[in-house]
């Protein structure tokens, strides 16, 4: 039985650094606009799903009047929440615009909304990292 062997083509240094720069642009783009990183790599299905997922989570989270953390947090949990919320990239400001009445975490709905917003951010960071890795040729 013949064994399959994979031959790794040598990649030149300038080509390598160019690919790394492109991967960074893809990762940053994917963070700023959910799905843009995958769209740049022509992974259209994943791009649409990322955009819709973050969009729906932000819309529902803001609609439930979840807490959208700011940089002026009081403790470590507020700071972590801010980092998670910032993960949505441009959608952070969309969520801010949608929450015209401000957050209301005195009810369970608002608490759930906070989780929806944080999940949107963490998911978008994961998707941007996935696009970055795919651009580097590590996984798809």
């Amino acid at each position: 039985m013949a064994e399959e062997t994979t031959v790794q083509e040598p990649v030149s240094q300038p080509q390598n650094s160019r690919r790394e720069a492109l991967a960074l642009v893809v990762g940053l783009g994917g963070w700023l606009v959910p799905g843009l990183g995958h769209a740049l790599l022509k992974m259209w299905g994943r791009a649409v799903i990322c955009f819709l997922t973050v969009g729906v989570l932000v819309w529902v989270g803001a609609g439930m009047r979840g807490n959208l953390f700011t940089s002026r947090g009081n403790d470590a949990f507020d700071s972590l929440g801010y980092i998670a919320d910032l993960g949505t990239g441009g959608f952070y400001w969309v969520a801010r615009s949608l929450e015209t009445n401000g957050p209301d975490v005195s009810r369970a709905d608002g608490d759930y909304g906070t989780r929806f917003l944080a999940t949107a951010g963490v998911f978008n960071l994961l998707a941007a990292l996935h696009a970055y890795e795919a651009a580097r040729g590590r996984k798809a």
Partner: protein
Amino acid sequence: MTSSTSAVSATLALIALIAVKLSHLQALVIFALVISVAFGFLGRRQPKERVKYILWTLLLFLLVGVGIGWAMYPFSR
């Protein structure tokens, strides 16, 4: 530029008007569905594998969510 900015603001205001009123179970189901589909698309390439992964993740999300809910029931009062 000003007209496009005002158009964006008007669209956002319109979206904000659509109030989201969900029961706890509805919120759980929407969350589980959205995240399962997203994980399925990110984690798997083949359509058949994606569907299997999405259904399995959705089932686990719902089972664990409802299970933890019932586990907390005796301590709710």
